[in-house]
């Protein structure tokens, strides 16, 4: 079974994105303050978007583009909600 060029590219980008997820998870565990962890969670959702895009390239399943859009939307909403919560907690 032989792969074409773009399948090798998709495998390589999946490898890089899983490595990036591990690195970002280290920052999520270490992070000294709460905004560090929020930034790491935001980056984790962006990396999930990249992984789904590599999966689309690999399997040619176009349906998952809707999943990409919804994941980006939910990441934005969650980040804004957490940021507003952090800012309101300063005020008491």
């Amino acid at each position: 079974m032989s792969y074409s060029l773009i399948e090798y590219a998709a495998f390589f980008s999946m490898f890089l994105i899983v490595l990036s997820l591990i690195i970002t998870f280290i920052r999520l565990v270490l992070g000294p303050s709460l905004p560090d962890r929020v930034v790491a969670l935001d980056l984790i959702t962006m990396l999930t978007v990249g992984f789904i895009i590599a999966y689309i390239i690999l399997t040619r399943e176009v349906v998952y583009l809707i999943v990409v859009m919804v994941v980006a939307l939910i990441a934005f909403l969650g980040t804004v909600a957490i940021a507003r919560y952090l800012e309101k907690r300063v005020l008491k």
Partner: protein
Amino acid sequence: MIEIVASIFLIFGSIFMFLSALGILRFPDVFTRMHAATKAASFGSGLMLISVMLYIGGAGVIISALLTIVFIFMTAPVASHMIGRAAYFRGVRLWDKTVVDELKDRYDIEKHTLSSKKEAR
């Protein structure tokens, strides 16, 4: 030919995402980490979506991928700005080699207001 171009876009997008993860591990500060995470990751996902547009094609795929690119490039700065604002107001320490801090005396923590001039009050 189009497959080679799509492969190049895909690999460069994933390299940008890996650089953003490396930046979020190695940078010394919340704000510099945010600088790495937001810009490099949104640019990398944009490159990967361009690769999907080139490789698969078709009107529906191109329209939804363009819509996702526009959405990501519109929302990522807003989310990053709100996290940075909340982090500064919570009093997260800046890096000790930071050159300029323009909000240093202009934020009133009791009234939660920003004044534009330093000698206004």
